[in-house]
């Protein structure tokens, strides 16, 4: 390639030496140089053929060379000029075909191009290369021996010396580039043939050429002639051949000796080897035997260990000191739901619930520090966790295994959920049993054959007043027990202990238990064996209450009997739902011809004739149905009151009926008399009222004429009258009015006293009432020149309950009196709210006042002060009596404060809300 580049440079710079080597020799053409450059590149690429890019480069170069060579050859063959010979550099040196490479060169390039083109055909490549090498050797020899015909086909086309040298070198290079492949294998082989080829082939090529060249020199210089030269050549050739043959023979002998030595050495070595092999074999056999035995033993041990592991009822997990699972059995797989492969190498904590893992880690570390056989987590509920995440109670025993590889820990894991369940069930059934036991209203206990109480209930605890624990300890034996007759009872006499001894149930034994406070509890005790020698059940019933109830019953029965026996004027009878008389007694029993003895225990139908039975049966039945009834029955000129009542117990159920009969003849007579008296009184009252009404009417009728006409006359309706006449007419009128007032007062008093006086209570407006009174009474006050004052307390409600007419009557009476007995000064009327529920009328005057001795009977009828002496003041003397009675009727009070000559104060207290119906 370098040569190529140099020639290219020579052509470009026109340096003769580079183009021709020696003056006069044929020049290497530019194209040739270019082809060599390409060949060089291709050869480099061939050496590093592993790279694909290099392959591509090689193929491109080969193709370019092939094309160049082919085109040049075609120019020779078809005698045309394709213009490729001088396409870059003009050849000034050559005469013919300027710039065109020789036939040989072109054909060589074609062949080398072909040789380099395929990649996997080393034999083809090498064959072609050898051919080219031969061609170029001919040209080279031609140059060495100066035989022009060898490197010149004709004058115009010859191979340049450096061209042919280059070809030769290139061919060698190509061959060595593929030294390990194709024909070159023979050369590079390490065998004897390779050795000969490598040593002899260069000599065989070079020596004849060298001799030839020397002889040629000698011939040319004229040292000898052609015949001498030929004989010399033959001689030298013979000598050289002999030397070579001898050398070959020597080499062969050396090789053979070496081979023989090697064979001997080999044989010795072989023998030694065989010997050693024998020895080793024997050794190995022995070792093998030992190993086989060992292995068998181990296999046996391991298989038995595995069998043991697999046959273990528990899940076995073997863990190394770091907690990695190294071995598990199929129970483990079944229990935890992991396939073995998923467990091996995992931390053992994978088999535990998350919550326990950290704690276990500590425990594990603790265990590996002091390994011993023990069960895991004593007193702790251990749980395993399956692959699906569910957990279950387990029991684990741990045992350390010391192995040369270190400590292993074997855990036997047992699923105890079934056992736990069973335990739970047992506990539940125990509890259920105890609950049932405790719910029993009677004391119950269970005693084993060793006379130990093994179970008892709350009721027994209560009866014995002893804690269960004490009882179970057998402390009950320290109590004192007595028979029903009061003698001491020994524990051996207890029904429970007797049952064990006598092997039969002992029932209804009355036992008195002496409590710590000395009181006795009476019990009824029965005992019986449980089937299958499971102990003795004792039932203790507290009889105290029953005994007390019995005593109470007895007492109440006695009470009843006493009561019945002493039942006055009649009888008491108890009967049941069969209408059977259970108890009959009473003082009046004999009066009606019956007796306790003939009646008790017999039914109605057994005692009475049918007509009586028919009459009384409905009443008896009604009583038993819950309906009491009462009626009077005349019997033998006497009257009996008969009551039928149901007798209920505490729950309200009718147990019995009771019949009570009583002679009410006397009472009846009394009643009749009273009735008659009342009727008479009422009649008298009616008559009195009638009389009063009639009298009132009859008195008022003439008074109407008297008052009416005198008023008519005074009003001048019938004409003017003289003052004298008027004075007398006024007298008539006044007396008429007095008479009317008297009549009214008498009537009121009579009615009040007869209880016929009714108040008409309505809602009244007191303020308006006071105003009316003022208007009505003012003329009277004015007539006497008195100051009539009124005052109304605004706190009084706008409406007050009361009888307006009667309140007016009270006011007219009191204010009338005040005006009447006051000659000068004032009359004051006040209405005040005097409390939350009452109000007060206060009438004060500056009148004559009342003497102290008169105050006491001021409110009595027909009392007019100073009646005997002067009789200065007219009046019926009934006014204040009526006032007091009216006020009392209204639920109020009236009082007076007065002193003779210092005026009077009358106070009337009345309720705001009437206590009577409106």
């Amino acid at each position, binding site marked *: 390639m370098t040569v190529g580049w140099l020639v290219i440079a020579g052509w470009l710079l026109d340096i003769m030496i580079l183009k021709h080597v020696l003056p006069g020799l044929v020049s290497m053409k530019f194209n040739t140089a270019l082809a060599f450059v390409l060949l060089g590149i291709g050869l480099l690429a061939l050496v590093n053929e592993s790279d694909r890019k290099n392959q591509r480069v090689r193929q491109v170069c080969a193709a370019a060379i092939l094309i160049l060579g082919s085109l040049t050859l075609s120019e020779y063959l078809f005698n045309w000029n394709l213009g490729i010979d001088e396409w870059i550099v003009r050849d000034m040196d050559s005469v013919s075909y300027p710039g065109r490479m020789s036939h040989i060169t072109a054909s060589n390039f074609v062949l080398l191009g072909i040789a380099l083109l395929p990649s996997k055909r080393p034999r083809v490549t090498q064959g072609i290369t050898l051919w080219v090498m031969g061609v170029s050797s001919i040209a080279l020899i031609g140059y060495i021996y100066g035989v022009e015909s060898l490197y010149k086909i004709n004058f115009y086309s010859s191979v340049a010396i450096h061209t042919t040298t280059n070809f030769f070198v290139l061919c060698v290079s190509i061959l060595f580039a593929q030294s390990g492949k194709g024909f070159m294998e023979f050369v590079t082989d390490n065998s004897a043939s390779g050795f000969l080829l490598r040593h002899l082939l260069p000599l065989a090529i070079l020596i004849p050429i060298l001799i030839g060249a020397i002889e040629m020199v000698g011939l040319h210089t004229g040292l000898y002639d052609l015949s001498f030269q030929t004989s010399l050549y033959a001689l030298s050739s013979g000598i050289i051949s002999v030397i070579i043959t001898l050398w070959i023979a020597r080499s062969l002998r050396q090789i053979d000796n070496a081979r023989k030595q090697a064979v001997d050495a080999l044989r010795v070595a072989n023998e030694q080897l065989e010997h050693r092999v024998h020895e080793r074999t024997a050794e190995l056999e022995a070792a093998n035997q030992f190993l086989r035995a060992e292995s068998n033993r181990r296999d046996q041990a391991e298989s038995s260990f595995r069998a043991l592991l697999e046959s273990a009822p528990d899940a076995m997990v073997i863990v190394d000191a770091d907690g990695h699972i190294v071995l598990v059995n199929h129970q483990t797989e079944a229990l935890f739901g992991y396939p073995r492969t998923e467990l091996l190498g995992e931390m053992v904590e994978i088999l535990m619930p998350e919550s326990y893992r950290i704690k276990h880690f500590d425990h594990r570390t603790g265990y590996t520090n002091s390994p011993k056989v023990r069960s895991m987590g004593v007193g702790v509920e251990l749980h395993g966790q399956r692959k699906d995440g569910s957990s279950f109670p387990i029991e684990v025993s741990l045992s350390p295994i010391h192995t040369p590889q270190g400590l292993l820990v074997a855990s036997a894991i047992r699923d105890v959920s079934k056992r736990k369940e069973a335990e739970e069930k047992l506990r539940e059934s125990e509890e259920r049993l105890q609950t049932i036991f405790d719910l029993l209203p009677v004391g119950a206990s269970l005693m084993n054959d060793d006379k130990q109480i093994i179970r008892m209930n709350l009721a027994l605890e209560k009866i014995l007043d002893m804690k269960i624990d004490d009882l179970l300890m057998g402390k009950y034996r320290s109590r004192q027990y007595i028979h029903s007759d009061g003698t001491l009872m020994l524990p051996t006499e207890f029904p429970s202990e007797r049952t064990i001894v006598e092997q039969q149930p002992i029932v209804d034994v009355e036992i008195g238990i002496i409590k710590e406070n000395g009181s006795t509890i009476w019990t009824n005790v029965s005992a019986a064996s449980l089937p299958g020698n499971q102990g003795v059940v004792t039932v203790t019933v507290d009889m105290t209450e029953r005994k007390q109830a019995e005593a109470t019953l007895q007492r109440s029965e006695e009470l009843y009997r006493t009561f019945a026996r002493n039942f006055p004027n009649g009888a008491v009878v108890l009967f049941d739902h069969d209408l059977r008389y259970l108890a009959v007694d009473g003082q009046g029993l004999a009066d009606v011809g019956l007796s306790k003895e003939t009646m008790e225990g017999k039914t109605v139908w057994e005692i009475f004739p049918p007509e009586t039975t028919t009459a009384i049966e409905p009443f008896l039945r009604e009583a038993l149905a819950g309906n009491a009834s009462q009626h009077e029955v005349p019997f033998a000129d006497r009257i009996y009151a008969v009551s039928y009542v149901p007798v209920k117990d505490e729950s309200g159920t009718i147990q019995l009926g009771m019949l009570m009969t009583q002679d009410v003849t006397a009472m009846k007579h009394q009643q009749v008399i009273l009735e008659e008296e009342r009727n008479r009184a009422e009649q008298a009252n009616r008559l009195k009222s009638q009389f009063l*009404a009639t009298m*009132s009417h009859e008195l008022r*009728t003439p008074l109407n004429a008297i*008052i009416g006409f005198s008023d*008519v006359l005074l009003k001048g309706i019938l004409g003017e009258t003289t003052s004298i006449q008027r004075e007398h007419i006024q007298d008539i009128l006044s007396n008429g009015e007095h008479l009317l007032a008297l009549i009214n007062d008498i009537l009121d008093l009579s009615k009040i006293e007869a209880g016929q006086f009714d108040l008409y209570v309505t809602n009244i407006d007191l303020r308006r009432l006071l105003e009316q009174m003022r208007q009505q009474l003012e003329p009277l006050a004015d007539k006497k020149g008195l100051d009539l004052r009124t005052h109304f307390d605004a706190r009084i409600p706008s409406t007050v309950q009361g009888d307006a007419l009667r309140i007016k009557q009270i006011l007219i009476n009191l204010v009338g009196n005040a005006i009447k007995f006051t000659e000068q000064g004032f009359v004051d009327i006040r209405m005040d709210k005097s409390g939350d529920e009452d109000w007060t009328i206060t009438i004060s005057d500056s009148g004559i006042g009342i003497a102290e001795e008169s105050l006491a009977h001021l409110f009595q009828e027909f009392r007019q002060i100073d009646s005997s002496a002067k009789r200065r003041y007219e009046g019926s003397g009934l006014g204040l009596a009526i006032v007091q009675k009216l006020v009392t009727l209204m639920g109020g009070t009236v009082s007076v404060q007065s002193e003779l000559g210092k005026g009077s104060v009358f106070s009337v207290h009345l309720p705001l809300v009437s206590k009577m119906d409106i």
Partner: protein
Amino acid sequence: VTALTTEISSWRVLVVDDKPVNLKLITLILKAQNAEIMSIEDSWDAIQAIETYQPNLILLDLAMPGISGWDIHKQLRTRPELDDVPIVAITALAMTDNIQEAKEAGFDGYITKPYHVDSVVIELVECVAAFTERKRQN
């Protein structure tokens, strides 16, 4: 029939009483107030008189021999043409029972004897006023 008002001059009164003195008295008083008045002594004549006289105010004594004021009232109140005529008891029956009874029977007023001139007039006017007010409201 003259319309009844509280003006006494508009009154056309029929009064029934078995005592002539009472009739005389009330006639005197009402005449003095310019009322027209007819008095009936025999209560048996009362119904007939009312039909012919056609009063706009009727005063009845209650306790009368023969047919009583109660009975007359009862009969008159069966006649719708007398709906606009107030009937007032004027009687010596002064017991509260009687007054209550009359009120329940439907008397339009109750005046007790004896009466003064002023009081009887005032009470009658009040009765008429109350009656006409009641009628107006109905």
